[in-house]
């Protein structure tokens, strides 16, 4: 049983216009076995939260803390976080030319486990996982994400999730750009990983569509860098009907007020 705890997190980025605060005090606790959905309109800071947990250098933490079973995640380097059990399924997985999937997967697995996987069982494991996610066998020989379609890249992210068995999976808009079939395949993968019982999931999404396939225990609504509402799965249903307008009105009013001031 593990706990990922985010407390009063403030995050900013450097832009040409100066420092811009994106997260304005976010608190969230995720435990093994739980699925938390973070929903919100574009630009609300959802992806910033995901990237900050993973340690992307673009984001500066100016306040608050992230701990994993009491260990200071913010003090860890990007690779240390991954080895501690944090996995980020990226919104836009990059292509890494010249590095084959096979080599990449084995290198990462070795780094995470601290020892090389046994070749025979590993090969079989990769093959099986690829098959379940309907990834063509020849992908293993190709370079990481090179020439993959958007949907293929997302499936390969979930392939890694299944193979690396993290304590906490952060899915950053994994559903965006997927057709229904691909969405099902990807969701099944997440559910398989979840069913093993050792993983907590933070599901970041703009749409409610994926929540038909991955059932959240908690839903948090993000607006303007803050959690504005929290609840159970029923909150997602309400969002599906009403959209984000209800929250956006307040934010818009604030913007107008600021402009007038």
């Amino acid at each position, binding site marked *: 049983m593990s706990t990922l705890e985010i407390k009063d997190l403030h995050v900013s980025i450097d832009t040409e216009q100066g420092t811009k605060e994106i997260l304005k005090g976010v608190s969230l606790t995720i435990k093994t076995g739980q699925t938390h959905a973070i929903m919100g309109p574009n630009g609300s800071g959802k992806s910033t939260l995901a990237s900050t947990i993973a340690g992307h250098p673009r984001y500066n933490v100016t306040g608050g803390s992230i701990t994993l079973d009491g260990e200071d995640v913010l003090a860890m380097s*990007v*690779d240390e976080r991954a080895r501690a059990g944090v996995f*980020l399924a990226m919104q836009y997985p*990059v292509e890494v030319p010249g590095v084959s999937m096979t080599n990449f997967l084995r290198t990462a697995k070795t*780094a995470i486990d601290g020892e090389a996987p046994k070749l025979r069982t590993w090969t079989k494991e990769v093959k099986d996982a690829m098959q379940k996610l309907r990834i063509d066998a020849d992908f293993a020989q190709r370079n990481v994400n090179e020439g993959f379609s958007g949907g293929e890249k997302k499936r390969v992210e979930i392939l890694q999730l299944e193979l690396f068995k993290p304590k906490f999976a952060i899915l950053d808009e994994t559903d965006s750009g997927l057709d229904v079939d691909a969405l099902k395949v990807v969701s099944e993968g997440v559910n398989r990983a979840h069913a093993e019982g050792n993983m907590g999931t933070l599901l970041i999404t703009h749409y409610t569509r994926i929540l038909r396939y991955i059932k959240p225990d908690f839903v948090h609504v993000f607006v303007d860098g803050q959690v504005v509402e929290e609840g159970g799965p029923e909150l997602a249903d309400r969002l599906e009907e009403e959209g984000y307008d209800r929250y956006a009105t307040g934010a818009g009013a604030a913007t107008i007020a600021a402009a007038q001031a």
Partner: protein
Amino acid sequence: MTEITTEKARIGAPSAQPFIDGFTEEGESLSPINAAASKAPLAGEAVKSHSHGGGVGIPDSSRAGRLTSYTLADFKPLTGLEEDWRFTPLKRLRGLHSEVLSGTAPTVTVSGPDRVTVETVARGDKRIGSAGIPEDRVSANAWENFSEATVITVPAEFEADTEVNVVITGQDTAAAAQHIVIVAEKFSKAVVVLDHQGSAVVSENVEIVVEDGATLTVITLQEWNDDAVHASSQQAKIGRDAKFKHVMVSLGGDLVRVTPSARFTGPGGEAEMFGLYFADAGQHLEQRLFVDHAVANCKSNVLYKGALQGRNAHAVWVGDVLIRKEAEGTDTYEANRNLLLTDGARADSVPNLEIETGLIEGAGHASATGRLDDEHLFYLMARGIPEDVARRLVVRGFLHEIIQQIKVPALEERLTDAVERELALTEN
């Protein structure tokens, strides 16, 4: 975060003290005193002739106009301002451009299929001069001073199933001259490996004749000791429907300057030229290519990739492609990519494309010099891979594209290991 620039220009690594001694920010001062002429340097009938250039004060406006001659005296003493020497630190040439090359030439040991003949011949042999004519003073100096040459012949229609290994081992560091001729006769097929090692100060001319319908791969490896100085002019004459592949790998040596050229003399020819270099602190690795599309319907493809690390690591790549008026139906592409792994390294990259006819299939060139992509590193590190391992994965991948062109497994393995050793040096 990512600093990738793509342009036809010289790009230097940012650094506190960014310039190599003797270089301005622009890298050089262009000289007005470059010779020019209109004669084709080498194509068919022109092989044995020579030109003296257009005279003082006429800039070298076309690659076709470069002075070519077998006589050293035809080339003026170098000042370092010449277009083709402006990046080269002449002081470090150890006399290759100015001394009589009387040192002991590196020994040449050849092994390979029995039917491939290896001869040591005197200067007067008729095959000498069959594919090459010096285009610079250092090459002419070697031509004037070599005492005997090695001629390797792949007989007509013979298809070699193992590669021809030519091990060239430096003996001492007195400036020396070397001459090698490789002839792939009609419809033959072979892979020839020129394996340069040891310590030497040598100017080398390699003449490569690819006769009609032949398929020849020449792989030239420069894995010299740290003190070696090597200038190598490797000129290939490509016959009708012949296929030529040239793979250049420069890893070791203080100053290594390889100038490969491919000249088409009959239609239907193909040339692929690949290069890999890894420059460490203080190393100067230079490569200047020339692809001469002098006849119709030939194809060429050039890709050179380099990694640089450490203070004053310097790589130069200049790729000249000339599509002459006669060369209708030409299809050509050339590209150079450099990866700067640390501050203080410098890569100069100049792709030049001259097109004298519009009736071509395609012509393109590209150059990009940049640092390791932070997003690549982040992706790999986010999967638990430590930074040093991630960096190595990316660089290895970057260079592997060239290594996999070699297609001699033992050699690919050896070079992969060599690249690993270079990468291990980065981590201190």
